[in-house]
């Protein structure tokens, strides 16, 4: 092997065709798990965040204190700590969520907390005159919220919401810690089995394949719904 150039050594280490071919199925199955996890987190996290923001708009004071407490808690804790707490902590109350469920719940809670704040900021940024005009024509609180306030609030929340959603969804990689077989988990076990970091490069490629379209789509949505006055 004395004739090897440093370039050959680099590709043999990071882009080893034999290793990559062998572990491609693992990485692909990891992608499926990541997609499932990401979709669950986005749907439940955003729905719960919106629900909390709507509850908060009812202005029931003790309820709002509770919402703020929950939201601030999940915003300050590192997601990894929440995953570990759910995975290793819940069995002590006779609940044994899988690593997949623990990761899903943890990141959904985090997304819920951040998106609640973003939705809430959107709702409160709609001018008071909008509420008054709608109520003066006889629209109820709920009708005003749904037809007048939320459509305006959503446009304002799209950019921060997409950013936050992407950032938290990438946190699915933290599932490795509790043995979730998502992309990073598959890649790192393949790496230790093959003594070669090529699977990690495949993992990176998988993340780009998954998230780059989302980032680009988010940018498109942001410009599409940009506020025109």
């Amino acid at each position, binding site marked *: 092997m004395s004739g090897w150039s440093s370039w050959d050594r680099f590709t043999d280490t990071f882009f080893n065709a034999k290793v990559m071919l062998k572990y491609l199925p693992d990485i692909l199955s990891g992608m499926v798990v990541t997609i499932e996890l990401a979709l669950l987190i986005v749907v439940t996290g955003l729905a719960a965040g919106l629900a909390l923001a709507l509850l908060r708009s009812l202005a029931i004071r003790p309820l709002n204190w509770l919402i703020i407490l929950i939201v601030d808690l999940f915003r300050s804790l590192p997601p990894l700590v929440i995953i570990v707490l759910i995975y290793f902590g819940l069995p002590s109350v006779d609940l044994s969520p899988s690593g997949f469920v623990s990761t899903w719940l943890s990141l959904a809670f985090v997304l819920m907390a951040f998106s609640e704040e973003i939705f809430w900021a959107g709702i409160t940024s709609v001018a008071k*005159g909008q509420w*008054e005009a709608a109520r003066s*024509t006889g629209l109820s609180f709920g009708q005003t919220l749904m037809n007048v306030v939320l459509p305006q609030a959503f446009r304002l929340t799209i950019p921060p919401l997409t950013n936050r959603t992407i950032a938290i969804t990438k946190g699915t990689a933290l599932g490795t810690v509790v043995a979730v077989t998502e992309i990073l988990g598959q890649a790192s076990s393949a790496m230790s089995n093959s003594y070669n970091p090529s699977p990690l490069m495949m993992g990176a490629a998988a993340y780009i394949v998954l998230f780059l379209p989302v980032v680009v789509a988010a940018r498109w949505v942001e410009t599409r719904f940009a506020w025109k006055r």
Partner: protein
Amino acid sequence: MDKPIVDARGLHKHFGALHVLKGVDLRVAERELVFVIGPSGSGKSTLLRCLNRLEEPSSGSVVVDGIDMLDPRTDINHARQRIGMVFQSFNLYPHMTALGNVTLALRKVAGKSRAGAEALGQAALERVGLADRAGHTPGQLSGGQQQRVAIARAIALEPRVMLFDEPTSALDPELVGSVLEVMRSLRESGMTMIVVSHEMGFARNAADRVVFMDEGAIVEQGPPAAIFENPAHERTRAFIGQIQRH
């Protein structure tokens, strides 16, 4: 006045330590146009907003078209359909077209079908001279046009009373005329109107009665000529003198 359509009695409103309305009585007859004038902070807007309960009076009673507005059993959303309101800052829904603005309450509150609401909405836009702007969003309309759409949004519900809260104060001078024109034609159609405004020329030739408020109370009221030419109170005289200098 045998049967007032708006009958507010003994209205008080406190905002914390601030006593904004100090026992106001206002009775307005059907088809009457009442102008409310007074220095800023005198409680004019608060009085107006108490009439459709956008503001909750601290005490007193408000009856509009026979409906007790402050009775907890009153369906306030239903009652508000009978009271149109126009705001200083228009408050059009920026995400909807002019027609969308006008038809929202027709569909959601009055229970009209989309087609029925659009026919009524188009007719209301016609009345304010904006039939050809139905598809425009507020951002594409001038201030005067926006305010006329706001008037159309209110009259489309066929209210019994219209409240105007400084409808021309946010407009460039050259756009004021078009809004006053619409108000004049509303008046001619027999609409009962309560107008908070400083448009003295309009008050002089269109109002039946001018009410002068100061520091949360009605100081005096009467026909425009009497209030403008021959006010009984010193405070009224001072206020009229001030606004006429401008």
